């Protein structure tokens, strides 16, 4: 009631001259102003989206998007019609948004991936590099999915821009926001459709004009009423303040149209003189951009890590470290280039790291060759594989040779004796990724020669080896060490349990087959098994708890299981190249088949093929020793479809999902209708989040107001301080006594406060006398030109304390 009266007060202009409150109540339709703001939001949001998509010629349902985003923009703008509408509107908007996004998430995801892929393809074309597709689109219909993502982005942009446009016309923030992404097509020399350049600039110009005009009915500083005029100025309430109109829709509309016409003329003019298609014809670029092109190429090809000298997670597997990997991220970059003549339809294994000793809880495989060269009764430290040009080899080659030396000799002997199914082959391997720290070689390599760097490749070697076709050989030293049978005690219970479950018994082959089948049936393959928990053992966790994993899990566990069953086994990391990949390789011209292959071939005479081996080919497997075959490859990893890089929603779902199976008791069971625990959890956390957001919003708003008042209070003069203090005091009392709130001047209020006090009559008399002085001080502080004294300030505050103390 008091507030209403205050609003109705005339404005004193001078002695005896007042401006009627009716002046401020001249009404202006804010609805129209909001519609205009919504139009600006539409122009900018649709303009910026269309800007990007038209630059890359991405097709989508334009009519639908224009209409939907326009409607959405107008609805968003309408949220500022009333405070209540705003608060509730945003809530409903959020809920509606979440609902729609959940329903159409696959379309949105695919649309997003489609745009990213198109962008990357354009970038690849511009930079002249070969880039594998980053994302797998779940839905192929790009017209549909891009339309969905446009509507999604339009929705988000509308909400975002509406805050900046409708509230304060912050065109600079808006410009930086919408242009940040739109610089991508411009960088790739792709110009937008003139329509979207026009829309974007029209919206920006309108926002700028309204901001400069300062009469756009800002929703922050002005109460959401329909007043036509308000008072403005630092010295508000004094004589020099300015009376200004809040907004005038006709003038705004005319100014906006002026801006639009101007922008249209410029856009048409520029397009007439310098059309966008021929704008960059003959332009040879500039040195500044050239500098960035190199960096951008690195970024595009190698990612951010390309700027640094190392990359541990993208260069295949060659360290034997396990457990600290939550998911395998593939960059599909070329790790190796391999040249060889295909001779079999089987998988080609290139052996890298060999793990002999499993360290439980440290979750790693180590090989001891680096410190012990006395394996198999031979000093391998001085072993140098034969090479044609006498180039020295390193100890790594010695390691490889040492571990399959006997087998290599057997195959060599078979070849030299022209036995059936024997051959000698050569293979060139170049290591392309600096992240691949350890070399790798084909099985049964006899020698290697250094051939790189050459042709721009690094660390190239030519390996000569004896391909195996499963033929039995005569092994001169069919041996293995105790290490190849060593199983840590910590792993024995889990291994026993798994072997029992797998029913592994009988011959070596049966045991191996039982384990492979057990894996296939019970332990699904995934590239995202999750990180092994701290203080947990990699193999135990895999076998007993997690029961899912990728090749390193299967191979590690299998090695220990085989060893436990008395089968010598080793863990190997390297690259596995399947036949289809080989078939898709490039033919190397001018290469003589005879230089690379001699002997039996399952495929007949082939040719030299060059294959790009990526980190997707990185693999781990098991080497098993059996008396018949010697050391040979056993791949225990079950065949599974290659998982796609999963999207946010899948991750979200997984996050909400329970990692451990829940009992039925944990579900709310209403007859036959069961609500999954995860849904209940989602609802519960959703409500908590919502409640938290509301509390933060309300408390934050109040806090900001209080802080603002406090800052003003600190910097205020003594008069204002007193008035502030008194107002605060009064507000407190009004909560208990509503009648006090209706009293509009200090005299009535102080007298009422005295009347309220429950004091003895003599004390009340004293209060009444002092009250008159307090009234005088308050009036002077509130309306007088001179400052009150400190003593008077203290007197009033003291009085207020006394008056309210019971």
């Amino acid at each position, binding site marked *: 009631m008091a507030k209403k009266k205050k609003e109705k007060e005339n404005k004193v202009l001078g002695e005896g001259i007042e401006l009627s409150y009716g002046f401020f109540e001249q009404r202006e339709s804010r609805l129209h102003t909001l519609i205009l703001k919504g139009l600006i939001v539409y122009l900018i949001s649709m303009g910026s989206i269309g800007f990007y998509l038209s630059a890359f010629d991405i097709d989508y349902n334009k009519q639908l998007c224009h209409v939907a985003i326009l409607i959405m923009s107008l609805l968003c703008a309408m949220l500022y019609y009333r405070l209540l509408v705003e608060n509730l509107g945003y809530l409903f908007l959020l809920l509606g948004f979440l609902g729609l996004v959940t329903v159409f998430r696959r379309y949105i995801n695919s649309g997003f991936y489609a745009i990213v892929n198109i962008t990357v393809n354009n970038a690849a074309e511009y930079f002249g590099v070969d880039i594998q597709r980053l994302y797998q689109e779940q839905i192929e219909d790009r017209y549909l999915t891009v339309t969905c993502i446009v509507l999604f982005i339009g929705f988000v942009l509308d909400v975002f821009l509406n805050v900046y446009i409708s509230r304060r016309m912050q065109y600079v923030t808006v410009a930086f926001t919408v242009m940040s992404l739109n610089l991508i097509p411009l960088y790739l020399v792709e*110009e937008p459709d003139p329509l979207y350049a026009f829309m974007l600039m029209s919206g920006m110009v309108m926002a700028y004009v309204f901001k400069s005009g300062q009469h756009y009915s800002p929703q922050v500083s002005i109460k959401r009423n329909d007043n036509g005029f308000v008072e403005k100025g630092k010295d508000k309430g004094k004589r020099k303040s300015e009376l200004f109109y809040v907004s005038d829709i006709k003038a705004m509309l005319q100014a906006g149209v002026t801006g639009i016409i101007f922008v249209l003329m410029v856009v048409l003019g520029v397009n007439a003189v310098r059309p966008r298609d021929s704008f960059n014809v003959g*332009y040879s670029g500039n040195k500044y951009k050239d500098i960035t092109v190199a960096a951008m190429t690195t970024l595009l090809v190698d990612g951010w890590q390309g700027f640094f000298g190392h990359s541990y997670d993208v260069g295949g597997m060659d360290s034997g470290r396990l457990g600290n990997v939550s998911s395998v991220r593939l960059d599909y970059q070329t790790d190796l280039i391999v040249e060889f003549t295909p001779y079999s339809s089987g998988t080609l294994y290139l052996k890298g790291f060999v793990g002999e000793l499993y360290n439980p809880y440290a979750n790693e495989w180590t090989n001891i060759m680096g410190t012990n060269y006395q394996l198999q009764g031979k000093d391998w430290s001085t072993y140098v594989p034969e090479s044609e040009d006498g180039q020295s080899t390193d100890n790594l080659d010695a390691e490889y040779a040492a571990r399959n030396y006997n087998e290599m000799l057997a195959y060599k002997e078979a070849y030299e004796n022209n036995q059936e199914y024997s051959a000698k082959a050569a293979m060139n391997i170049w290591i392309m990724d600096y992240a691949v720290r350890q070399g790798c070689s084909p099985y049964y390599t006899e020698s290697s020669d250094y051939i790189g760097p050459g042709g721009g490749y690094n660390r190239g070697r030519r390996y000569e080896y004896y391909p195996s076709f499963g033929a039995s050989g005569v092994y001169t030293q069919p041996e293995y060490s105790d290490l190849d049978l060593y199983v840590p005690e910590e792993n024995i219970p889990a291994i026993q349990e798994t072997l029992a479950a797998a029913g592994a018994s009988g011959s070596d082959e049966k045991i191996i087959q039982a384990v492979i089948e057990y894996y296939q049936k019970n332990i699904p393959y995934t590239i995202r098994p999750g990180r092994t928990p701290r203080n947990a053992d990699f193999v135990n966790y895999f076998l007993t708890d997690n029961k899912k994993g990728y090749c390193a899990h299967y191979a590690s566990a299998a090695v220990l299981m085989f060893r436990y069953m008395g089968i010598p086994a080793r863990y190997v990391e390297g690259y596995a190249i399947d036949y289809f990949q080989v078939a898709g390789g490039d033919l190397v011209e001018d290469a003589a088949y005879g230089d690379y292959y001699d002997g039996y071939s399952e495929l007949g005479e082939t040719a030299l093929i060059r294959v790009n081996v990526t980190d997707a080919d990185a693999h781990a497997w098991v080497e098993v020793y059996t008396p018949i075959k010697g050391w040979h490859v056993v791949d225990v990893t079950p065949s599974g479809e290659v998982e796609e890089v999963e999207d946010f929603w899948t991750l979200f779902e997984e996050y909400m999902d329970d990692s451990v199976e829940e009992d039925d008791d944990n579900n709310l069971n209403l007859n036959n209708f069961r609500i999954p625990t995860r849904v209940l959890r989602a609802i519960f956390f959703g409500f908590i989040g919502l409640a938290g957001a509301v509390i933060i919003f309300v408390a934050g708003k109040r806090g900001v107001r209080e802080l603002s008042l406090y800052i003003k209070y600190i910097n205020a003069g003594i008069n204002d301080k007193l008035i502030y203090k008194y107002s605060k005091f009064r507000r407190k009392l009004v909560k208990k006594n509503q009648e006090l709130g209706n009293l509009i001047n200090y005299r009535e209020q102080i007298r009422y406060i005295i009347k309220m006090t429950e004091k003895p009559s003599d004390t009340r008399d004293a209060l009444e006398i002092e009250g008159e002085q307090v009234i005088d001080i308050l009036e002077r502080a509130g309306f007088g030109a001179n400052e009150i004294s400190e003593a008077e300030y203290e007197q009033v505050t003291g009085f207020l304390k006394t008056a309210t103390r019971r």
Partner: protein
Amino acid sequence: MGGYMRFEVLFRAIGLIILYAICLALYIFLHSQFYLIVLIIMLLGPIFSIGMAGHLRDKTEVRVMAGTVSTATDVSLIRMEDMYGKQDEEVYFCIKLDNPTLFVSLDVKMILEISNLFFGVTTERTISVPIRAKTGYEFMLPIVPRLPGVIKVTVKKIEIKDLSGLCFFKKNIDVSGETTVLPLTLKDVKYDKNDAEAGMLESEESNKRGNDFSDVQEIREYIPGDKLMSIHWKLSAKRDILMVKDRVSMSDRQLVVVPELCGTDQASLNMVVTSAYSVISEMIEDKTSIRLIYWSCNRDDYEETRIDYKEDLQNAFAQMFYESTYNSPDEAASNMASVHPEIKAYLHISAEGRNLKLQVRENI
């Protein structure tokens, strides 16, 4: 060009220059047609806008109309009625900016001077309004006068801000409108009515010393041959044409009221004027003819008016409100005996401190 910049727009200009520099750098870096468009808009936009505002300044006209009654809530439908306003009630000033051009401005600072001529009160205010294309803009300024007198609203100048917000174009206007606000009619003004009538109705017609004790019958336009002293200088100045007071000799007896227009204290002057108005109003309701005499600083002579009807009263006070007040609290009474010896007594209305003093004085 006539435009000038303020600190307010200086920051905007600096911001624009920074933005322009960024866009220029991006254009050089990207060699993009889009940024060429942006640069042209940023360069030509302000020029176009400033030119537009300059033209707007030249073509904009301002009108001020004053009145008392508004008959509609829509500004465009308001009809101003040219009659006197009343103290404590709204009087309206309709301010119109006529814009014949197709250009528009969102921010026109209008510097207004609002004054009460009689009380010598003047205040200045800035009102910000838009100018629409073709139609301009008009709005109502509802003033509530707490003192009687002539309320005058003058548009001193306008400052038109261009759409880019970089320039203000100033135009001196000095167009005004005014309206007269009559005092309140008080019902409880206390004075000795019988004494006043008994003493004052003894006044007789006299032409002593060439003083004109006649009453003004009507005011008409000057005709060659009229006496110079008959010219109504104040009205002539107001209407821009010579007006004369046509006088007739008083043949009946009248009650004389002499208010002191001492302006040292506004509240006291308000009391005097309001009381005089109320007393006279009451008397003419009783069919008593009144002779209002007050000291005119403008003419340095007494101004006198016969009042028989309410309209006479309103006109007389409307004319009186163009007078300047003086500082002596007894100025009008001090010369009465010498200038108007034929008057035996009169009702002298003055203020003593903050107290009203209504006294029947013998003219000696």
